[in-house]
């Protein structure tokens, strides 16, 4: 498996270096729940085959933003466009990995992973071929016939990831997909995901609480801040070559991490003073 990813560093670097034309275009986006305005005036472009990570304090509207991009929520101002079409409801080729996993408790791992394929009208034989592939890919081999309640949180999250990946989306929206796994598994999954991405590059919007993860995974890091929140900063990561363990030791990695950290820390301090 590792062989394949080693054959592809060029493609990886290329895709990271010059993302294609904007696949997702967010203009003047604002969203309120009743009187609570979550965010306002968000302008973002996500290129084809680009990985953009989004960080921001808890409650700043990261999940809400992903829901708007997926077409699950109506927006109040502005618009989200994917490939030039305004999004009003979920669109083909866009898949989401949910923070709440959203697995069907009465379905086995296998059946959960097959769910999206079935809805897309993929043939039975094709489903039988693909499902085990993606189960293996996320490292759930041997748990095909387990039910979600028999899995750990991290395993459930991987099952949700496999379900989204199986539909082979062009746009993958991920809401803290590795929040429930331990540090080691998390690292394995991060590099696995990058490997999967290198095999089949797609536009990826990746929400995370972990600054390290944001810098490691992202071509760009979007920092959301404020109340209502808006885009505070967009950081070009441009770390060299395919990301791997050595990336974590790169001076530029540490530099960006510290930068994002202090940005968010200012906000946290400000919030604290407000409370006091």
């Amino acid at each position, binding site marked *: 498996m590792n062989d394949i990813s080693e054959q592809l560093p060029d493609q990886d670097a290329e895709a990271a270096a010059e993302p294609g034309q904007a696949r997702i275009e967010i203009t003047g986006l604002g969203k309120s729940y009743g009187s609570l305005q979550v965010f306002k005036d968000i302008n973002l472009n996500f290129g084809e085959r680009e990985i953009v990570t989004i960080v921001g304090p808890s409650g700043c509207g990261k999940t809400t933003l992903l829901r708007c991009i*997926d077409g*699950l929520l109506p927006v109040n101002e502005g618009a989200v466009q994917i490939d030039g079409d305004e999004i009003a409801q979920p669109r*083909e080729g866009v*898949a989401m990995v*949910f923070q709440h996993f*959203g697995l*069907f408790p009465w379905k086995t791992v296998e059946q959960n992973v097959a769910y999206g394929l079935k809805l897309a009208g993929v043939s039975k034989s094709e489903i039988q071929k693909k499902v085990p592939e993606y189960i293996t890919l996320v490292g759930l081999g041997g748990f095909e016939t387990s*039910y979600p*309640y028999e899995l750990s949180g991290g395993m459930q999250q991987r099952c949700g990831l496999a379900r989204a990946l199986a539909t082979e989306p062009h746009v993958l929206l991920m809401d803290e997909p590795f929040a429930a796994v331990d540090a080691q598994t998390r690292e394995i999954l991060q590099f696995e995901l990058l490997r999967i991405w290198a095999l089949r590059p797609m536009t990826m919007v990746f929400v995370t609480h972990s600054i390290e993860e944001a810098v490691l995974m992202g071509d760009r890091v979007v920092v959301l801040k404020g109340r209502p929140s808006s885009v505070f900063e967009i950081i070009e990561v441009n770390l060299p070559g395919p990301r791997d363990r050595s990336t974590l030791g790169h001076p530029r990695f540490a530099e960006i991490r510290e930068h994002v950290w202090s940005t968010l820390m200012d906000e946290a301090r400000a919030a604290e003073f407000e409370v006091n």
Partner: protein
Amino acid sequence: MNKVISLVNSDRTLVRWSTVIISLLLGAAIWEAVGMSFNQAFMAPLIGNEEHPGTLPRLYVYFFDDEEYLLSLVQSIQLFSTGFVLALLVAIPMGIVMARLITLRIALENYILALYVTPMIALIPFILSILGFDFWPKVLVVFLFAFFPILYNTLEGARSVKPELIEVARSFRSSELAIWRDILIPYTLPYALTGIRQASGRALVGMVAAEFFLSTSGLGEELITASRNFDMAGVLATILVITGLGITFMRIAQAVEKKYSAWRGVDR
């Protein structure tokens, strides 16, 4: 002492089954003793003797030497199943529809709760005097006894469907029909089955009650005839039959419920 307690509480199959059998034999012995020492008009023994035949011999006669009794039994089962199946067919879809159409639910919720707690037996004279006494009004009685527990539980289940799952379905571009098939029905099923188990007990009461009033029929008629003749063995034999039916329905419902509730492993 500890040894005795742990032996008593052990769940080994042998201990279990011997406990069950001893308990049943003891119950039978008490019944027999009480029956033999009472006047025949008040209490029949379980087995009895030559001049004082008890409940089990009567049961034997009913089942192997009394075609009319078997007809009554069939009649009762027909009544029960018709009312019960109709209740199922109406209550489950209605419960799910009401979970999806919130206004409908709000409009009907109070009536449903009220009727769920109303002792249906109070409505029987009313129903029978308006609609008459033949088969279908009786079916309606059984239906009403079974309907509300099923509806109430189905509705509770459908209401508690996790919005996150609907969100997932929408994200994968599911049609409304597929949302029913993939989420609403499987999610609601265990709740509905709880309702069905409750309903099977209630429907049995409804069945006997419907058969008691005015135009008697089926097992209810057998029960009334026997008690008018002070035939206690007959009364108790029929009660045993009804109890047997009740336990059978209950056990079937329980087994089905268990099978389809396995995924609620976290609730255990």
